[in-house]
């Protein structure tokens, strides 16, 4: 038996159908996970049969949408559905063993949806890299992609401001201070990282 993974995208409406189908065909429920993205929460349902691991992804579920529970078919999902509800704030309806938002006692509500400055920065950086890469590729086909220069602090600043606009002023100030320190460190770190990466081989 070999092992293979597959990623597919489905819509929210197709979920019950998928769950029924998988049940009928004797697939094993592997897991449910959520990823917080700008567009909403991605839900990934994984099923497995004969070494084939299929991950079906529902992109960008928003707060006002309700996701039907699949515990009618796969009871084992109750753990993950409760978890996704508590940590990501996804509304899941009809969980067989529903802890009603008390699966975890948490300091913050829906902690996984809070976009930390680090995550923000990382996404930003990734976007820059991607942009730069695209630009480079366009500019010259023969050059192999190489290390990017560190993102310009100004650009980051702009982005940050945009993000902070919505926050309450006190918090925003804090974040801003943190970001400044972060940016400075980042700049220093970028250099050392480049170096060690080179030496690591």
């Amino acid at each position, binding site marked *: 038996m070999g092992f293979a993974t597959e990623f597919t995208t489905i819509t929210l409406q197709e979920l019950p159908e998928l769950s029924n189908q998988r049940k009928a065909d004797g697939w094993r429920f592997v897991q449910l996970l959520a990823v917080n993205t700008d567009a909403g929460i991605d839900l990934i349902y994984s099923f497995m049969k004969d070494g084939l691991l299929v991950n079906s992804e529902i992109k960008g579920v928003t707060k006002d949408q309700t996701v039907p529970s699949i515990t009618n078919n796969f009871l084992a999902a109750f753990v993950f559905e409760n978890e996704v509800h508590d940590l990501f704030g996804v509304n899941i309806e009809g969980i067989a063993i529903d802890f009603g938002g008390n699966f975890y006692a948490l300091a913050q509500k829906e902690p996984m949806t809070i976009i930390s400055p680090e995550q923000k920065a990382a996404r930003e950086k990734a976007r820059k890299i991607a942009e730069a890469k695209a630009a480079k590729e366009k500019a010259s086909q023969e050059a192999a992609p190489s290390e990017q220069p560190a993102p310009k602090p100004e650009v980051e600043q702009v982005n940050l401001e945009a993000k902070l606009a919505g926050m309450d002023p006190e918090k925003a100030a804090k974040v801003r201070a943190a970001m400044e320190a972060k940016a400075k460190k980042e700049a*220093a*770190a970028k250099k*050392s*990282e480049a*170096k*060690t990466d080179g*030496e690591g081989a």
Partner: protein
Amino acid sequence: MGAFKLGKMTISGLFKQPETVQYPVQTKTPPTGLKGHVTNDVTQCILCGICQKRCPCGAIEVSKPNRTWSINRFRCVQCGSCVRECPKSCLIMEPTYAPCSTAKHVDVFEVPEHHKSEDVIKTSE
């Protein structure tokens, strides 16, 4: 089925030397590479800060202005990545674990000035 399946082992236990390491009277000889605690051979350290950056716990703090290298042993998880990443190989994983204490503290090492260090940075730049 049957009883006293462990009978032989329990009886023979009476006549055998127990396998207990009678610490602290007796100590095991630490094998090489035992993850005990991290120390810094400060004569080599160039305060580059790589260890600080690599540490997944933020247990190390390198201060260039004060010329100190400090480690919070109550935060270090002995992952050894600082040791592996230190460019000067001045970090050593000692095979003895950090002592217990009634209060948490940070171990601070003063890093003396040494000329060579400047060269190293230059060459590697």
